[in-house]
C-alpha cells in the first residue's frame, strides 16, 4: 500500500489527465469535470475519452484510453459501474499513474463483486484509486479538479495549507464552498467515498508528507480498520494537527448489550476514545471545523496565558467567562506591562485583563495595546475583541489586525460581533488570513484547542 500512497502524487500533480466518460451534454458529470480542466486553468494535457464523440469542448475526443498516444498521469472515471473493471485494465496496460473514480454503484448498492475486482486490479498494478462514489480530488496548486459541481455553483477555494479529507461528497462540497467563501486556503481536497482501495489512513499518510499541507481536516462516518486508523492518527497528528469531525454519533447496534458498559459505550465512544488517544482535535459540527482550523494557521503559543483587548466591557466579560469555562487562564500583567498600558489609557481607564480600551478609543489605541501585549512575556495568546460599530473605529483596524497576524509573533484570535457592516469587515479579515470570529464562544473554543495541542507537541519534544 505504501507504494500506492506515494504514487498519489501522479493524481495530485498530473501533467496529463484523461476524462473517461466525457460528454458534451451540459450538467452531466462527464461534462462538468471536463469543463473544470478546460476552463479551470489546468495547463497539462487533457484527453476526453468517449467512443461516441470525436470532439468535446473543442478538444479531440478519444474512443478509449489505449488510443491516446501520450503518457497519462491521472484518469478520471465517470462511466457506469459495470464498465469500470475493463477500463481499469486498460489503464493498467497504458501504465496510467492513478485513477479518480467518481462513479457510484458499488459497495453502497450491494455490488461488492465489482468493488472486489477494482481492488484486485489496483493492487496487482500498484495503481492508486481514489473513490469510487466520491467527488475525487482538487489541488489548487496543480489545478486538478474532479469535483463534478459546476464552478458557478460551487466556488473553489484559494491555494493554502489546509488539507481536507472527507468520506462524504456532500460534506466535501459544502466544505469546499465554505472554504472559498471564508477565504480559507487549501492544499489538497480528497473526497474518497467508498475507500475501496485507499482509505482515510492512507490519505492521512499522504498529506503528512505533502509539503503544501500544514493542517488537516478530516470528516469520517466510519472506518474499516480502527486500529490502523488510530496508529496513523497518532503518527500524523504529531507532525501536523488533525481536526476531525465524526458523522453518525448515534447509538445504533447496541441492542444486544448485556452489561452497563455495553449499554453506554456505543460505537461513537470508541471513535471518541481513539481521537483522545491520538490527541487529535475533535470538532462539534461543520462550522466548528472552520472555527478551529482558522487559528491553527497561527504560530503555536508558547504557553497558556491569555490576554484580552476590547473596546466593549461587556464583550470582554463574556469572553472571560468562556475563557474560564474552557479552563484557560487570563495572564496576570507584569508591572512593566501595567506601566506601558497605563500610558495608553485615558485617565479614567482601568489597567486589567481583559484590557478595556473603552468605546471612544480608536485604531491607534489598538495598535499600541497589541504591541504591548506582543512584547509581554506573560501573554501567549491575544484575543482581540473589536466592536466595529463604535464612532472612532475605522477601516485602518483591518491593517492593524492583519499586521498583528502576519507578524507571526504570537497567535491572535479576533472577535467582532454584529450585523451586515461588521460581517463585511470580518470577511476581509478572513481573506487576509486573520482568525476572525463572530462570537466569543467560537473564538475561545478554538484558542483552547490550539493551546492544548501546542502543549501536547511541546511535551513530545
Amino acid at each position: 500500500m505504501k507504494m500506492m500512497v506515494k504514487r498519489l502524487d501522479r493524481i495530485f500533480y498530473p501533467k496529463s489527465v484523461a476524462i473517461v466518460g466525457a460528454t458534451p451534454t451540459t450538467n452531466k458529470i462527464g461534462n462538468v469535470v471536463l469543463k473544470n480542466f478546460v476552463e479551470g486553468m489546468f495547463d497539462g494535457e487533457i484527453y476526453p475519452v468517449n467512443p461516441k464523440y470525436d470532439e468535446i469542448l473543442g478538444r479531440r475526443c478519444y474512443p478509449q484510453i489505449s488510443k491516446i498516444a501520450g503518457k497519462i498521469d491521472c484518469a478520471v472515471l465517470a462511466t457506469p459501474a459495470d464498465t469500470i473493471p475493463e477500463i481499469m485494465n486498460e489503464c493498467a496496460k497504458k501504465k496510467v499513474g492513478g485513477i479518480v473514480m467518481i462513479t457510484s454503484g458499488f459497495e453502497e448498492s450491494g455490488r461488492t463483486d465489482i468493488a472486489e475486482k477494482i481492488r484486485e486490479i489496483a493492487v496487482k498494478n500498484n495503481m492508486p484509486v481514489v473513490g469510487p462514489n466520491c467527488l475525487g480530488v482538487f489541488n489548487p496548486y496543480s489545478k486538478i479538479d474532479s469535483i463534478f459541481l459546476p464552478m458557478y455553483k460551487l466556488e473553489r477555494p484559494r491555494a493554502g495549507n489546509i488539507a481536507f479529507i472527507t468520506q462524504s461528497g456532500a460534506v466535501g462540497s459544502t466544505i469546499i464552498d465554505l472554504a472559498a467563501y471564508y477565504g480559507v486556503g487549501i492544499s489538497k481536497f480528497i473526497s474518497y467515498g467508498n475507500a475501496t482501495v485507499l482509505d482515510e489512513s492512507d490519505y492521512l499518510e499522504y498529506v503528512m508528507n505533502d509539503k503544501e499541507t500544514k493542517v488537516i481536516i478530516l470528516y469520517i462516518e466510519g472506518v474499516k480498520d480502527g486500529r490502523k486508523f488510530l496508529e496513523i492518527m497518532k503518527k500524523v497528528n504529531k507532525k501536523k494537527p488533525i481536526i476531525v469531525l465524526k458523522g453518525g454519533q448515534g447509538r445504533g447496534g447496541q441492542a444486544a448489550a448485556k452489561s452497563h458498559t455495553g449499554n453506554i459505550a456505543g460505537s461513537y465512544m470508541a471513535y471518541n476514545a481513539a481521537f483522545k488517544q491520538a490527541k487529535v482535535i475533535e470538532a462539534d459540527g461543520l462550522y466548528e471545523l472552520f472555527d478551529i482550523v482558522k487559528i491553527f494557521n497561527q504560530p503555536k503559543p508558547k504557553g497558556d496565558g491569555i490576554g484580552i483587548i476590547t473596546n466593549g466591557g461587556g464583550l470582554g466579560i463574556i469572553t472571560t467567562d468562556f475563557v474560564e469555562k474552557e479552563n484557560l487562564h487570563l495572564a496576570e500583567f507584569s508591572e512593566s506591562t501595567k506601566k506601558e498600558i497605563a500610558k495608553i489609557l485615558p485617565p479614567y481607564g482601568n489597567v486589567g485583563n481583559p484590557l478595556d480600551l473603552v468605546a471612544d478609543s480608536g485604531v491607534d489605541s489598538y495598535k499600541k495595546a497589541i504591541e504591548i501585549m506582543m512584547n509581554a512575556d506573560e501573554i501567549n495568546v491575544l484575543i482581540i475583541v473589536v466592536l466595529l460599530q463604535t464612532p472612532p473605529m475605522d477601516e485602518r483596524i483591518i491593517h492593524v489586525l492583519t499586521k498583528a497576524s502576519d507578524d507571526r509573533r504570537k497567535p491572535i484570535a479576533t472577535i467582532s460581533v454584529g450585523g451586515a457592516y461588521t460581517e463585511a469587515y470580518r470577511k476581509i479579515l478572513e481573506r487576509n488570513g486573520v482568525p476572525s470570529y463572530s462570537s466569543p464562544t467560537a473564538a475561545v473554543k478554538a484558542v483552547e484547542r490550539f493551546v492544548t495541542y501546542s502543549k501536547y507537541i511541546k511535551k513530545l519534544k
Partner: protein
Amino acid sequence: MTMVDDFELLEKNGFRLIPYKTAKNEKQALKAADDLGYPVAMKIISKEIEHKTDVGGVKTGIKSPEVLKIAYAEMMENAKGFEVDGVLIQKMARKGVELIIGGKKDPQFGHMVVLGIGGIYVEIFKDVSARICPVEGMDVEEMISELKSHPIIDGARGERPLSKKAIQELVLKTCKFMIKKDIKEMDLNPVICDHSGCDIVDVRFRR
C-alpha cells in the same frame, strides 16, 4: 455461566476479589458467613437473573446469623420463579467510592476499556471515559481527569483521594484480560475504592 464462574475466571487471571464462598442452602450460608466473618453481603446465584439488584437478589451489611436467616428467606421469596443455584456470601467491601471499570470489543477498534462512576445509576449519569486497549498509565490518568466526577476521585469533602495506583492497575489489567480472553463485554461494577485500594464487588461478562 453464573457469577461464580465469572469470579473464578477473574481470579485465575490475577484479579484479587474480596473473599467469598458459595452456599446451596441456609445452613451452608450461615457456615460461610461464620467462616468469612460478619458483616457480609449475600447475592443470589442464578443463570436466569440479569440484574440481581432489580429482583431483590442482593443484601449487604448483614451483621449477624439472625439477620442472615431473615435475608436468606426474603431472597428466596424474591427469586421465586427463577431457577436458583444458591447464594454467594461475600465479605463486606471497604467503604469508599463506587467505580465501574468495564470494557467491550468494538467492531472497528477492538477492545476498549471504560472507567466511570459506578453503582446502579451508571447508565443514568453516564459519567464514563474510554480508551482503546492497550493503555498506559498516562491514559488512565487522562481517563480519570476527563470524568465530570473526578473531584470525587481526587478527594472531595475532606475525604482522602482514592488510590489512583489501584485504579490504574485495575484498568490496565482489565485491558490485558479482555484481549487475552477475547471478552466481548465486561463490567467490574461496583469497584469500591478508598485511599488504600479497591475491592471488586461484582462482575459481569459476555464472552
